[in-house]
């Protein structure tokens, strides 16, 4: 197991390296020039332009910029620009000159929001999806099954941002069934229970919309997986032993059907942690996705780099975790 983990981690690090190179390259091959953008189109003199460029650290050779960035992750960096000295303690994911703060600080600020959204939505997505899918599978061929499949298909065919926007405008703004969305810190100043309530209220609509839309693919997948599991020989044996129908369905069939779902869930969760852009924008939740979109519009390269790197780390880590988890669920799977 240990050898396997080490190999996977080493492989993961090389993936992260390539992701960083790719992002870096794409940014610099792009048509946008952040220095020019900051400089403005009217009063921009060549000297002013060069000064801005220097202050953004963009006058150095690209390769050097890249390796300074990498080094900073482990050791921290001291950045010098236009006479100013900025400290960027390790792990230094870069320094945003536009916001005048280290990227890691910005990430740390926005992370709780994204994590809150991801956790709540994934709970809904998994439970609703699996329940609907397995119920449909158990009652395969009946009207209920057909209705559930149709509903699931319809929901997944609608563009997410349209649904989210409609939900927000109709349910939160117009009809006011749901409170206005927004992030309230879980560990705020007031009593914990009050903070918890406000935290839930601000996120509830986002959780429901994101969770329900994402549950459709889980419903489809677990339905198919469950139908297959119900036809397995070991389920026939379970029935032949005289076990109750519930026990046969849940302990024997569902357990087998869920094994692959775990893999998908882990990867979906990793994706959610990287920032749900539409959700955060529409429901006004300032998480990593929100921050990343702003950074792209502002051409703030360090933030973009930091966000991409963070998301990649989460995905690589989750890939490893999911593979290990699968081997714990299915004793036939040997790692490495």
């Amino acid at each position, binding site marked *: 197991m240990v050898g396997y983990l080490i190999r996977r981690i080493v492989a993961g690090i090389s993936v992260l390296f390539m992701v960083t190179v790719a992002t870096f390259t794409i940014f610099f091959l792009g048509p946008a020039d952040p220095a020019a953008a900051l400089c403005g189109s009217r009063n921009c003199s060549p000297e002013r332009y060069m000064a801005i460029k220097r202050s953004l650290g963009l006058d150095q050779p690209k390769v050097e910029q890249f390796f300074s960035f990498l080094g900073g992750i482990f050791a921290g960096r001291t950045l010098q620009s236009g006479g100013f000295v900025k400290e960027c303690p390790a792990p230094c994911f870069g320094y945003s000159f536009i916001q005048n703060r280290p990227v890691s600080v910005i990430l740390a600020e926005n992370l709780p929001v994204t994590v809150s959204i991801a956790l709540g939505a994934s709970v809904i997505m998994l439970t609703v999806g699996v329940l609907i899918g397995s119920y449909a599978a158990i009652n395969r061929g009946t009207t209920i099954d057909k209705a559930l499949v149709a509903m699931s298909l319809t929901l997944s065919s609608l563009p997410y941002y349209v649904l989210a926007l409609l939900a927000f405008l109709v349910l939160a703004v117009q009809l006011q069934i749901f409170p206005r969305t927004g992030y309230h810190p879980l560990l705020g100043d007031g009593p914990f229970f009050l903070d918890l309530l406000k935290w839930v209220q601000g996120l509830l609509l986002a959780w429901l919309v994101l969770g329900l839309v994402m549950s459709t693919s889980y419903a489809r997948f677990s339905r198919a997986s469950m139908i297959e599991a119900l036809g397995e*020989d070991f389920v026939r044996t379970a029935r032949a*032993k*005289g*076990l109750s129908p519930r026990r046969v369905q849940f302990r024997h069939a569902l357990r*087998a059907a869920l094994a692959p779902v775990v893999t998908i869930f882990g990867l979906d969760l990793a994706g959610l942690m990287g920032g749900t852009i539409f959700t955060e924008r529409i429901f006004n939740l300032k998480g990593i996705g929100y921050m990343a979109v702003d950074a792209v519009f502002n051409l703030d390269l360090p933030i973009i780099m930091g966000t991409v790197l963070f998301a990649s780390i989460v995905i690589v880590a989750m890939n490893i975790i999911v593979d290990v988890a699968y081997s714990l669920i299915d*004793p*036939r799977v040997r790692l490495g």
Partner: protein
Amino acid sequence: MSGTQEPFLCVEDLTVKFPTADGVVTAVNGLSYQLELGKTLGIVGESGSGKSVSSMAIMGLHDPRRTTISGSIRVQGTDLLGVDDERMRKFRGSVAAMIFQDPLTSLHPFFTVGDQIAEAYLAHHKASKREARERAIEMLDRVGIPQASRRVDDYPHQFSGGMRQRAMIAMALINNPQLLIADEPTTALDVTVQAQILDLLQDLQREYGSAIIIITHDLGVVAEMADDVLVMYAGRCVEYGPCKQILTHPEHPYTWGLLTSAPHLTGDPEQRLTPIKGTPPSLIHVPSGCPFHPRCPYMSQLPDDRCVETLPELRPGGQGGSHLVRCHLPNPDEIFVAEIQPRIG
């Protein structure tokens, strides 16, 4: 068969149909047989003959939404086909138990063997997990698994094929069922292991006094184990009687085909194998009259078209009483002695 008391298991006119997109599959058609405690019935036939389907009907394992079952299956006087789900669940695994062909896929890969055996016990007894585990170890030991107390915590994939089948037998017998249905229990195993498993089953039968139905396509297994034999073809019984009788004086052309197509250890190595010509019939469009007629080499012996037009009745054979045959041939024994017997080693 004899005596005033009804036999332990009495199947009468059992018919099992599945509606499918292509038509209704009549997997079992008018099957009748009886079985006493302590005796073994061998059900023989090709794939698709309805052998497994009829036994699954006894266990109530068919999906009621997709299956139509008629006739009667009486165990100690009670007709199982009229019994509600909960009573049927209690019956399954305790009064009657079933073991299946492939023990690797028939055991759940995620749970230990001990877990699954104990589960069978706990489904029908109020006991603690500890007690159930002890019983499981006892049974594993009884079926001949070495170091049972250690192997009880192994997973099915960690057992060899023969040991897995023994574990399945342990799981089936843990509640002392009166009826054990073994559906091709040795087909997936090596020949030497086959013999061990069959010995084990006979041993356990002597000890527990259970009735056994053994489903197989292998006449060797039947010869070894069965008191009575029932030959099935296209969902119908075509020959039924005491094993010794059927194997020494069979009267149905299909049975002859089964006997002559089996290779013999002491036969002439140059001699070609004689399969039964043709293929098993569709169970949606079963041939008219006698279902075997498209493949029967003796149909021409009859002057008219009765084989094509009329389904033969199951009537007593030439040797008397309990041997029943479903065939129009008036003199099967003559044909048997002249043509078939010399070819059987």
